[in-house]
């Protein structure tokens, strides 16, 4: 019998996601893919998957899951979700085994928004337009083109060597309200005073956040552009900050519309996107303009750090709590030392 993950209960926003669906911009389709690309990569390494396999992305709330047809190797990454198997807590950033008959219960996010549940072998749904990512708005990809529901049985691909008891040090808690951005081509539509006010304003993340975008709020007067609408639609980048009629910014994210006609004041740099999307409702956000060169430097650093992740995997034995305590106290092995050192600086 082939192995599967059965959904006994599901939070409202759990979907199958992978690295996304590049190359379809000319067909009106943004790349999509996991909101927290770094956590997807971390989860992939923790369960020993090759690139390109799909995981489950959870927004705010997890669910209850059961292994069917054999044991599954799983790992949680991204935002820290309370989780347990039967009555035993499960640590994030640590791969573990779920035996048939056991129930994995993932609760609410304790910090951040987006968590990933990675599975050795990946969620084995059929790729659509080259990706297993769910495009919820258009209803295709992933599992039936929709968020998961109670009773869904997700096929799991063939796993290589079982890879439980690997750990990485999480750096999700390193969240900062300073978000670096580059001024956009349309920034001039706002005038210098409004631009200055924009970077001096402390915005708050609202509950209106999902895979398409995140709306920000402020008590300050609305940010006004000279023109409410740019006449013609142009391409929208991941992380574009759109300021619509209400004068409140909306940050456009993975499942955004790929083109639009409303003025965009700037773009969050790629290296700060994970930090931004993990800011929970109520958290503050301040935009800090940087140059194209600084953005590019940060982009290269982000990729260099991701390339170092495989070397930071640590095999842990026995009680994962003990291992985690050791990791957190930096008491074992030089490799761990370098992890925590990187961690101090790395927000990317």
């Amino acid at each position: 019998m082939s192995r599967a993950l059965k959904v006994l209960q599901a939070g409202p926003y759990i979907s199958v996601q992978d690295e996304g669906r590049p190359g379809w911009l000319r067909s009106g389709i943004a790349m999509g893919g996991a909101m927290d690309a770094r956590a997807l990569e971390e989860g992939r390494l923790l369960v020993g998957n090759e690139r390109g396999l799909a995981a489950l992305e959870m927004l705010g709330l997890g669910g209850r899951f059961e292994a069917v047809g054999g044991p599954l190797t799983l790992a949680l990454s991204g935002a820290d979700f309370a989780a347990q198997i039967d009555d035993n807590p499960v640590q994030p950033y640590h791969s573990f085994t779920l035996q048939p008959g056991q129930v994995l219960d993932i609760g609410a996010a304790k910090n951040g928004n987006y968590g990933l549940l990675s599975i050795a072998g990946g969620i084995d749904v059929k790729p659509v337009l080259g990706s297993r990512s769910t495009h919820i708005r258009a209803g295709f990809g992933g599992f039936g083109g929709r968020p998961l529901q109670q009773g869904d049985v997700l096929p799991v691909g063939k796993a290589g060597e079982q890879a439980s008891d690997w750990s990485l040090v999480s750096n999700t808690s390193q969240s900062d309200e300073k978000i670096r951005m580059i001024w956009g081509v349309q920034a001039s539509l706002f005038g210098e005073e409004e631009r200055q006010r924009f970077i001096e304003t402390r915005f708050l993340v609202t509950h209106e956040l999902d895979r398409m975008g995140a709306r920000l709020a402020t008590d300050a007067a609305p940010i006004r552009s000279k023109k409410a609408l740019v006449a013609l639609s142009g391409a929208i980048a991941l992380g574009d900050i759109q300021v619509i009629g209400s004068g409140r910014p909306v940050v456009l994210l993975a499942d955004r519309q790929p083109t639009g006609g409303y003025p965009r004041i700037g773009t969050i740099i790629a290296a700060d996107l994970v930090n931004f999307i993990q800011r929970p409702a109520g958290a503050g956000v301040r935009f800090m303009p940087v140059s194209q060169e600084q953005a590019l430097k940060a982009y290269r650093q982000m990729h260099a750090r991701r390339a170092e992740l495989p070397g930071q995997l640590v095999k842990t034995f026995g009680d994962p709590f003990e291992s985690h305590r050791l990791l957190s106290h930096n008491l074992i092995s030089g490799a761990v030392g370098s992890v925590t050192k990187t961690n101090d600086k790395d927000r990317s």
Partner: protein
Amino acid sequence: MQSAGAYELPRLSMVGEALLVVEFGAGLSPQINDIVIAFDRFMQDNPLNGLLESAPMSKSVVLRFDPLLVSPEQFGASVKDVFTPFYVATNTSILPPKRWRFPVCYGGETGPDLAKIAARTSLSQEEVIAAHQSMVQRVLMIGFAPGFLYTGMLPDLFELPRLPQIKPMVAAGSVCVAIGQTVISATPNPTGWHVIGRTPFRNFDPARDPPVVIGAGDELAFYAIDQQQYADLRESAKMGVEQTGREAKT
């Protein structure tokens, strides 16, 4: 190739770290859109180092590249280097467009804003429909949502502002007008445009190969169908579109 409204040379601007927008003119005109579509084709036929994908917009081409392979400066310079060969090539090789007969069930429940446009312009609904079909429309771009078509330009009476209130959701196949253009959705979407009808055709179907059939540069000749025909065409696989120009089956 240069025409009214076109820039002397295309303007390059970066969006984020990995998108370069090549803008050919300040305003929209068929001539500028022609150049856009030709440049997009040129980019696909002559890919630059680091180019990941090219997509035509109304008056610009968006190039996504890998900033780990080429810096924005290098990439921008290589784009500028191809302008001359591009313009030379384009003068000799503009393909005739594909043309499609495109069915629309106008007015009624599926086109609730048709009556309002008629009232606003002191025309009958039949006259508005006739005006909408009076000129072959060019597909300016696909954007906003999967397979979502922007076409233009319509007669002046369709120079309407967009609605003050966004409609939270309109059905797949909605045919909507504003600012002299028609947009046609393939999936349910919010819209700020005036909904005048619905087509049985869906320009996006992930189960079809290719998933998107009609592309930028193609031409649409709208024709009216009634509700019964709409229902019949939804049932059939063909959905009423028929290619009549370039490469059409004889």
